[in-house]
């Protein structure tokens, strides 16, 4: 079941093209719109060959703002295409084709490369493959009556377009692309260095924590620290209470001949023995002790 018909019409364009295009389409250019050169070079990558393309075409083709495509067709054998996209777009416009209907433009070279073809373009010209290079030739040189329009109905185009309206919409030139590329590279370098810095900082914090734990002989988790702290707090509470109880006893004003004969602490109880001058003083002391409100430590007289 087909839900969407995504296939676009493909037109083969020559300089004599005279049809009216009123819907979005892809265009395959006749060889007269670009230059092709087959070359044998002892170079392994197309990328290196592409860098050399301007010097390869220098003096061979008219002056223009050319872009290049390189196809590796065999070991050390390359096929180079030079095209001036502004010139091509102008030519297409001059043929009466509105550019808003043109999605992508391809070369016949990229779309029929490797096919042993012999196709009629119109009543005068045809397209044939001459030793790997697509050429527009007079019709009498054709070996068959096959029409290119019939072939284009089922033609699946490649990804080797030389123009795409979606790219043109953002209106970027080759130079803009290079600047964008540079900016993206810088952004990536920044991101990588930030990631490395963050990773280093994380390990630094981890090592600082480990050092802090080691230096202070601490347990590894906050939970353990909390429980040890609670234990120490309990201990502190009792120790402070012992000292408060002693202080309370010591704060009772004794006269010259009066003194404690014993002060003993054991098992949360502070025992005392005191020598006081008479019953009145003993009563005063007992009343004083009754005011002692702390519950943690008891104060008792040892009998």
């Amino acid at each position: 079941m087909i839900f969407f018909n995504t296939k676009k019409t493909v037109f083969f364009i020559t300089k004599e093209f005279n049809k009216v295009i009123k819907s979005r389409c892809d265009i395959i250019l006749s060889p007269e719109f670009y230059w092709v050169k087959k070359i044998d070079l002892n170079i392994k990558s197309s990328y290196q060959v592409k860098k050399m393309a301007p010097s390869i075409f220098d003096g061979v083709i008219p002056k223009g703002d050319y872009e290049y495509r390189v196809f590796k067709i065999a070991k050390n054998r390359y096929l180079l295409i030079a095209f001036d996209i502004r010139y091509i777009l102008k030519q297409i416009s001059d043929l009466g084709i509105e550019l808003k209907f043109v999605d992508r433009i391809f070369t016949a070279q990229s779309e029929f490369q490797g096919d042993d073809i012999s196709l009629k373009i119109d009543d005068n010209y045809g397209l044939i493959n001459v030793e790997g290079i697509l050429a527009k030739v007079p019709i009498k040189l054709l070996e068959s009556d096959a029409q290119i329009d019939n072939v284009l109905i089922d033609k699946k185009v490649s990804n080797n377009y030389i123009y795409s309206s979606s790219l043109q919409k953002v209106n970027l030139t080759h130079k803009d692309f290079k600047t964008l590329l540079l900016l993206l590279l810088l952004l990536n370098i920044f991101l990588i260095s930030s990631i490395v810095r963050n990773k280093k900082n994380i390990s630094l914090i981890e090592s600082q924590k480990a050092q802090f734990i080691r230096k202070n002989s601490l347990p590894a988790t906050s939970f353990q620290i909390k429980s040890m702290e609670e234990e120490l707090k309990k201990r502190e509470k009792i120790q402070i209470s012992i000292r408060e109880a002693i202080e309370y006893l010591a704060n009772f004003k004794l006269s010259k001949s009066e003194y404690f004969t014993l002060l003993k602490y054991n098992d949360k109880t502070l025992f005392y023995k005191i020598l006081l001058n008479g019953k009145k003083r003993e009563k005063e002391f007992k009343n004083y002790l009754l005011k002692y409100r702390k519950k943690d430590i008891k104060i008792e007289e040892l009998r």
Partner: protein
Amino acid sequence: MSLYRTILALVFISLVLGGYLFYFDKEYKKATKEFESFRKKSENYLKLKKKWVQKEEKDRVLKSIKARFKPSLYKKSSNSLLIEFKNLDERSFKIVGDIFLNSGFVIKKFDIKKDSKKLFFHIEVEI
């Protein structure tokens, strides 16, 4: 269109790296926050520990008491110390008592008896 593809690839790589950076930045902030919180929690514990546990300081004090006041009993076990003074005068008792009662010694028990003008002081502390 290789330049275009390279740009797309770089945008994709940037997004992935951006994701990583976001993750590591979050991890870094989390680690910093955790360490700060751990340090704060430890500070209270360390203060208490310094006050009630610090062995080195206590050892130094005990050594000085032992040398100056010649206790009649000075017995250390694994976690406690028994120390006893039989004939302390008031002044010496004030000093010794002050050391044990106004510092971080954890008192287990003590016993003070006054007989005529001399004082008997027996104390057991945690060490």
